[in-house]
């Protein structure tokens, strides 16, 4: 370990950048949320007035805000666990002792993760087409009638969840595979000696041993899911009937479409509060 002035020189570029373009904007966002900063203020910041908690009280009275919060929570609470469950299932399949070509399947399942979300959303828009889409074509063989995936307010959010699970499950699968490989074989051998069935071994060895991985994956996934934006932006524009309107989409539209930056900043802080709440719950659970 070395003490030297040089350390500051090595740190300076990164820390200055983080300070100027990450830390300052976060505090500025809090300040902004207490103002009526709008299109006139973008032109000249002198046109800004302090409004205190005005934006927040307005926000809480706006039904569209509650719709956005409700949709985002729907996406997080249904999509998050579903995605984690699919990831765990895929990890168990890929990691099974009986599986051949493990590396191949692992890589294939991972491919959607590296894809560009916007491109994927464009593709799935056509897969979801009620008349020509492959999904309805496949389902008609099972006798399931045509579903208006993105056009029906009840189906729009499930459709976005389905696509997101397809895109993301490979990521958490890899983390689960690493977690599974860290479980000692002795535990399974001992369970086998005691006559435990496959399901019992899964319940009493695999699941408890995966505990920390499970928690990590669930929390990071759900935090990531609160930031839902590109999927509704590209696929549904938040519709139909605001069924896929998310918090971040609301923030984007208020901020960059209507230039109500002050009001939008208060939406950003609600998002921050949600994520912070989620993280604190995770801390609690860990103990």
């Amino acid at each position, binding site marked *: *370990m*070395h*003490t*030297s002035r*040089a350390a500051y020189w*090595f*740190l300076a*570029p*990164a820390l200055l*950048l*983080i300070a100027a*373009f*990450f830390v*300052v*904007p*976060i505090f*500025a*966002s809090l300040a*902004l949320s207490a103002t009526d*900063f709008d299109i006139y203020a973008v032109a000249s910041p002198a046109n800004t007035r302090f409004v205190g908690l005005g934006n927040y009280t307005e926000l809480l009275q706006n039904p569209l805000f509650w719709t956005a919060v409700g949709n985002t929570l729907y996406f997080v609470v249904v999509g998050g666990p579903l995605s984690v469950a699919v990831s765990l299932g895929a990890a168990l*399949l890929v990691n099974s002792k009986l*599986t051949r070509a493990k590396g191949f*399947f692992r890589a*294939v*399942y*991972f*491919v959607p993760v*590296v894809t*560009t*979300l*916007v491109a*994927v959303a*464009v*593709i*799935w*828009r*056509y*897969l979801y*087409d009620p008349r*020509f889409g*492959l999904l309805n*074509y496949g389902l008609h063989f099972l006798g399931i009638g045509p579903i208006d995936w993105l056009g029906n307010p009840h189906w729009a959010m499930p459709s976005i969840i389905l696509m997101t699970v*397809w895109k993301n499950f490979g*990521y958490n699968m*890899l*983390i689960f595979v*690493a977690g599974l490989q860290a479980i000692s074989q002795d535990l399974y051998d001992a369970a086998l000696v005691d006559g435990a069935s496959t399901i019992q071994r899964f319940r009493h060895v695999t699941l408890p041993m995966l505990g920390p991985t499970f928690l*990590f*994956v669930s929390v990071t996934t759900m*935090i990531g899911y609160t930031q839902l934006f590109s999927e509704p*932006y590209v696929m549904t524009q938040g519709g139909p009937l605001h069924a896929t309107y998310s918090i*971040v989409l609301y923030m*984007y539209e208020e901020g*960059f479409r209507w230039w109500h930056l002050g009001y939008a*900043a208060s939406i*950003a*802080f609600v*998002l*921050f509060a949600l*994520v912070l709440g989620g993280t604190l719950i995770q801390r609690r659970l860990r103990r």
Partner: protein
Amino acid sequence: MKRVALHVALVLGAITTLAPLIWMVAASFMPAGQATTYPPHFIPRPATLGNYRILFTRLDVARNVMNSVIVSFAATGLSTIINAMAGYAFAKFRFRGRDPLFRTMLAGLVIPAQVGMLPLFVIMKQLHLVNSYWAVIIPSMSSIFGIFLVRQYALSIPDELLDAARIDGASELAIFGRIVLPLLRPILVTFAVFMFMSVWNDFMWPLIVLSDDAKYTLPVALANLTGEHVQDTELMMAGAVVTLAPVLAAFLFLQRYYIEGITMGSVKG
């Protein structure tokens, strides 16, 4: 029996995973209208490059490819070196406030990027950087995650090696350039792959800060095109192929590094 069922499930999973992408490629070579027929076509007949021709002539997507390439390479190169320096400093130097600073930074990892985006836009506006490559590059130039990755890896560099070089009279910069950087190479490659993909795929920030078609990165250009050409399925699929091909190719060649980054990121706990 069990083994067969397992592999049937695996293969079905693989088909489900790849089908949308395979259909995308197939549809991109179909003549106009063929992707929206019932029952659907799976093989383009006759196969055509017409969609790609329209993309690169009339819609001038080549400049969007260039924008994405410039922004992604610049952000990746700059952030790799900047985070390497900082990660090394956190791992191998003693200075006042080091540990609290590092812990505070890690806590910042949970803050969603969107929280600061509105003021960030105002800052870029004040710096007259809106609608420039720099507006996209600058916020990516330092990454807490990157600093963390490098720091964990750099902890394993033996102090004796660095001290020996100091005794020989090497400057700190020379030590960093000739000893530390080569030793950090594996983690830097992993980080660079990670970074490249995330900048290439990024959508929301470029959408906000770029205002002119000629400056759009590929995802923004594609989202914009779907607005105008929603009926042109085959054309849009060609656009998706152009957007995805580089990241998919990078993944095929560099998947080992990418996958390492994920498992390393997850042990931070």
